[in-house]
């Protein structure tokens, strides 16, 4: 295009016959040889940035893997944290590990049905239009609120007397910190991701597929349940997994609304409820406390816990991948 730009052919020595197959190899699509200089610099920057981010991701993963394998002992996952002066005395982080699982399950089981329901309503019903617009922008602004702000707001809600049954109460004062409180606020963190991803999945389904279902006498709700949601399953799963990732990765809400003790602090009551109404901790909080800046200062266990966290996130990614692959096998409409 621009003759002022030196082509590779001009730079190579004249006696270079193997140039030909090289050109037909890549040049079949479009060689960058004919590009303007600025475009080629742009391409080079993109390449460099891409490689840089790959390198950062790989570095984090490899470093945590090495540290994790070195410090993680299976016993840490079953031993609760304990008081002690050395790292060998202070036990493991079983309570944090179980705590992470609890908030993940509780948080997503609130966020998933609510998020899918909101997305279905927005895409398939969406009337009155004004209400739909308001809902949309509300969800978007929830996505933008820092989780520490949500946490602070949560303390106001869950310290109210009406919700006293969800946390420790003594002499009429509601403690306001429990798995219930933390999971409720964490579900708000996951909700926008579930909504956005589900909407994307529903919007990708051609209109005539819905009509094909209506045209054999199916109601809207039957179509949603049997056709649309199963079709959007990969995107719903993606939203759920992204939401889970945010939930297990959140620290602010845990510190403020879960009490950030290093052990479960069950309150009186029947078995699961006494734990869920009490304070607790999660892996992120443990990593923070065990890091050199935290109160526990046992960096080896911080690495071990961070490694467990990383494995959980990788497992989530793998799960999403499996769902998507299965959906690809089922095929899609031809256009």
């Amino acid at each position, binding site marked *: 295009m621009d003759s002022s730009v030196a082509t590779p052919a001009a730079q190579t020595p004249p006696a270079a016959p193997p140039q030909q197959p090289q050109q037909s190899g890549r040049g079949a699509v479009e060689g960058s040889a004919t590009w303007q200089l600025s475009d080629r610099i742009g391409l080079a920057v993109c390449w460099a940035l891409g490689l840089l981010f790959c390198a950062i991701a790989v570095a984090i993963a490899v470093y945590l893997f090495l540290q994790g394998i070195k410090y993680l002992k299976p016993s840490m996952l079953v031993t609760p944290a304990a008081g002690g002066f050395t790292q060998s005395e202070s036990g493991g982080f079983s309570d944090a590990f179980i705590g992470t699982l609890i908030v993940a399950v509780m948080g997503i089981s609130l966020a998933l049905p609510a998020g899918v329901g909101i997305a279905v309503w927005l895409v398939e019903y969406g009337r009155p239009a004004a209400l739909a617009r308001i809902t949309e922008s509300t969800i978007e602004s929830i996505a933008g609120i820092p989780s520490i702000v949500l946490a602070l707001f949560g303390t106001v809600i869950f310290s109210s007397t009406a919700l006293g049954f969800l946390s420790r109460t003594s002499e009429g004062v509601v403690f306001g910190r429990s798995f219930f409180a933390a999971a409720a606020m964490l579900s708000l963190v996951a909700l926008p991701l579930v909504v956005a991803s589900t909407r994307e999945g529903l919007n990708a389904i051609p209109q005539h597929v819905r009509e094909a279902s209506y045209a054999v006498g199916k*109601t809207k709700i039957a179509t949603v349940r049997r056709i649309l949601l199963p079709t959007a399953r990969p995107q719903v799963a993606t939203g759920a997994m992204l939401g889970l990732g945010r939930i297990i990765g959140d620290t602010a809400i845990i510190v403020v609304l879960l009490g950030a003790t290093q052990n479960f602090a069950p309150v009186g009551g029947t078995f699961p409820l006494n734990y869920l109404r009490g304070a607790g901790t999660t892996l992120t909080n443990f990593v923070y406390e065990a890091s050199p800046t935290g109160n526990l200062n046992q960096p080896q266990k911080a690495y071990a816990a961070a490694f467990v966290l990383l494995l959980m996130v990788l497992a989530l990614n793998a799960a999403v991948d499996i769902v998507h692959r299965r959906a690809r096998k089922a095929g899609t409409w031809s256009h």
Partner: protein
Amino acid sequence: MESLIPVPPPIRRLPLEQTPPAREAAPVGVGEKDGNGAQPASGGFTAARRSIGAPQFSIRRMEIDAVSVSYSDREAVKSVSLPVRQGEVLSLIGPSGCGKTTLLRSLNRLTELTRTATLTGRILLDDVDIRLIEPTLLRRRVTMVFQQPNPFPMSVFDNIAYVLREQGSRRVRKKTLEPKVHSALQRAGLFEEVKDNLDHPALRLSGGQQQRLCIARALAAEPEVLLLDEPCSALDPQSTQVIEDLIVKLRDDVAVVIVTHNLQQAYRIADHVAFMYLGELVEYSSATALFNSPREQRTKEYVSGAFG
């Protein structure tokens, strides 16, 4: 067990033997001036008609009576009156945007899904105004096949089973539904090709097979009228031929209405043809008459390829 299967609407299909072989007398209607006119072939259309001959019988099932459909303030269909008969294939032809698809969609109240659409006039199904029939019941009696093959992303079997089951229910077991699924696939001429792969994903079939699955799906509801909206436009010639044969075979059991852009196709399979232009019904007559000796100038120009 039997009660879990949706009760099919009472079937008013008349058995073949009892009906007189004669064609029905020309009904009233704007375009209908010579319903029985099987003029000798002359003119441009020399392509072979399907070896189907004249229909054995025909019974009026639907009556489109002065129907107009508007989107917001644009009138897409302007006061069209047409009969839809079982025993023959009715083809709607016309240039893009002439309202033929809108008219087709109004026959099973799919136009109501478009919020801005308003319909005036009456459409009768067996002498009952379709606005008095509950939409889901109506759409089981008047089913539709779309332009794009659109099987649901589930197995071949489940595509049909979904139609047979009540709304979103999954209670009826596969074994119970098997005979009905098989017969629907057989009617659509697909059974032999897929009988060993009934649990394969439907979207992995070829385009032609997908479209026949959609026809099987539409037939599984035991409809009285089958609407087809350019069913072959996304298909190769061979699949098109298979589906055309199928449509002709179906006309004895269901009233068939097909929208097509393909004039040759209309000539090959239709018994009656309605030519629409800018929302109006310009001409309605038998396929041979309309293609070989059109009464209207616009019809003549359209079928000879002058516009559209």
